């Protein structure tokens, strides 16, 4: 069931709808990750035996029920947790810690409440030595403030902004250092439905422009289909890869009504049949 898709003959890769290339960028091999539960003094396996390759420029959605280890997966890519077994490599080198080539967008925005919008976007430049002059950083911050349309809110504090605006700050902060890989942990889960649609389409536009590789966590099937080139379905804890599906829908998807295409509903049904049992057992509170 573990698909290594690096060498596969994928027609959609060449069709122009698929953003990915054939160059592997993130390679996880038989990776098992977990964490220590301090209070209960035990180890908890979050992900077991994960083998997955993400190609350069690809938009991969990780889909699964709550607590299936999706977050642990991108934490492993970002380097804030390290695998217990197996390996994870980014651009040919094993991940040993966070790096400027990877940035993350968080579900609860994770903006520093004592920093202004501008200062939050500037934060990664303060921590990472990117060898940029002050003027270059200023220009960069300004450009990404502009991109997420937050001009005029530079001096505002996060608590003064709406949820959607806060996440735009989060996105600008992640994109401003122009990382190769953008990791997103259910970034739109806490945002109201209408704003969410607008933000999904904006994200598609940003990463199409910047050609970033995106690993995007979601528990929404629709979000996964409308955004992803590939969908990785993960089972309940300890998380394993259940299935990897290609999304062969034309891009940019928000300019066309992809939801009305027969391929969309077919895919949706297929994914639903994969996650149905777990979603239902989750709803009944079974672990």
């Amino acid at each position: 069931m573990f698909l290594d898709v690096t060498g596969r003959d994928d027609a959609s890769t060449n069709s122009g709808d698929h953003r990915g290339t054939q160059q592997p960028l993130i390679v996880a091999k038989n990776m098992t990750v977990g964490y220590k539960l301090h209070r209960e003094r035990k180890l908890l396996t979050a992900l077991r035996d994960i083998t997955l390759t993400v190609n350069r420029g690809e938009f991969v959605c990780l889909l699964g029920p709550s607590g299936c280890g999706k977050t642990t997966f991108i934490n492993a890519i970002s380097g804030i947790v390290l695998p217990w077994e197996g390996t994870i490599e980014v651009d040919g080198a094993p991940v040993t810690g966070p790096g400027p080539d990877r940035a993350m967008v968080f579900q609860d925005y994770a903006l520093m409440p004592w920093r202004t919008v501008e200062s939050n976007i500037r934060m990664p430049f303060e921590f990472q030595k990117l060898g940029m002059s002050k003027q270059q950083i200023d220009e960069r911050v300004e450009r990404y403030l502009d991109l997420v349309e937050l001009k005029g809110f530079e001096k505002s504090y996060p608590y003064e902004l709406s949820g959607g605006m806060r996440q735009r700050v989060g996105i600008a902060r992640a994109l401003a250092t122009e990382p190769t890989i953008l990791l997103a942990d259910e970034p739109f889960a806490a945002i109201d439905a209408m704003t969410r649609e607008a933000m999904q389409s904006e994200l598609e536009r940003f990463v199409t422009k910047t050609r970033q590789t995106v690993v995007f966590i979601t528990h929404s099937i629709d979000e996964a289909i409308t955004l992803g080139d590939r969908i990785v379905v993960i089972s309940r804890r300890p998380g394993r890869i259940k299935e990897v599906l290609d999304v062969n829908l034309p891009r940019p998807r928000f300019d066309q009504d992809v939801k009305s295409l027969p391929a969309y509903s077919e895919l949706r049904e297929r994914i639903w049949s994969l996650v149905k049992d777990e979603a239902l057992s989750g709803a009944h509170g079974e672990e």
Partner: protein
Amino acid sequence: MELGKGRSSVRGAWGRIVADTETNTPTDPKSFEDKDRIRTAGFSVGGLWDQYGSHVVTVVNLICFFILWEVFARSGVVNKVFFPTASGMFGTLWEGLTRSAPPDAIISGQIIDHLLYTLRTLSIGVTLACLLGVPAGLLMGGNRYVEKILSPYVWGMASLPRIALVPLFILFMGFTVKMQITIVTLSALFPIVINAWAGVKTTEKSLIAAAKVFGASRTNIYVHVVLPYTLPFIIAGIQQGIGRGMVAVIIAEIFGGSNGLGFLITRAADTFNSELMYAVLLLLVIISLSFIKITRMIEIYIAPWRQQVVM
């Protein structure tokens, strides 16, 4: 063509959200004028009331209270030795704060001298408590071993009523300022330690994760995440510490010493000077409330993003 159109419509969606937060622009100019007039008229009255209304209520409330007090005291239901008139109390307070003591007075020193003495003891004690407590709390939050070692003592001392220690310190140091300062420091120390400790411990995990992802070193995390997050907790701790220190200084002065507001209260009681006693009590209320108000303002200024602080 189609592509561009789609993009601009999306931009529009965001643009609207932004515009909504800035202004509400009415479409019909006539209705705008009407609304504006009504709003302006309402604003001039409602605005003033909104701004000063609660202060006016407080002042009127207090005036009524003291008038009732005065009437009640003059009626003679309660002996004047126990319950002075409000005017007598204010008179004594005013005199005590503005005039220097006559050399032949029964009680040495005026209210102002004792006030300054108490404030000095209090501020030295609280300052010492901050200097010891803030680093101790931060260390306990940041290092598991320090926490393990210190926490039984901190909880033990925090749960012991510090007043019970007063006789011990009198034994050690006599009726001295040193004894009073020690008691104030010990009283103010533990709320400060515990709040700083709690602040570090409750720093939001996602903020630390974000800092890590964006390349923060350990030092960066402490300086740029944990410390700013903990700052409002520290201020809340100091606020509590001042309150506890205030109690401690008065009790220490009542127990022993020949200076300070606590001493003045006992002297006033001994000489049946109820006006002086009530004046000192009122002064204590005013001082405590001012301290709370000032620390509250500092808190809002430093951390406007956190209007409520736990513990």
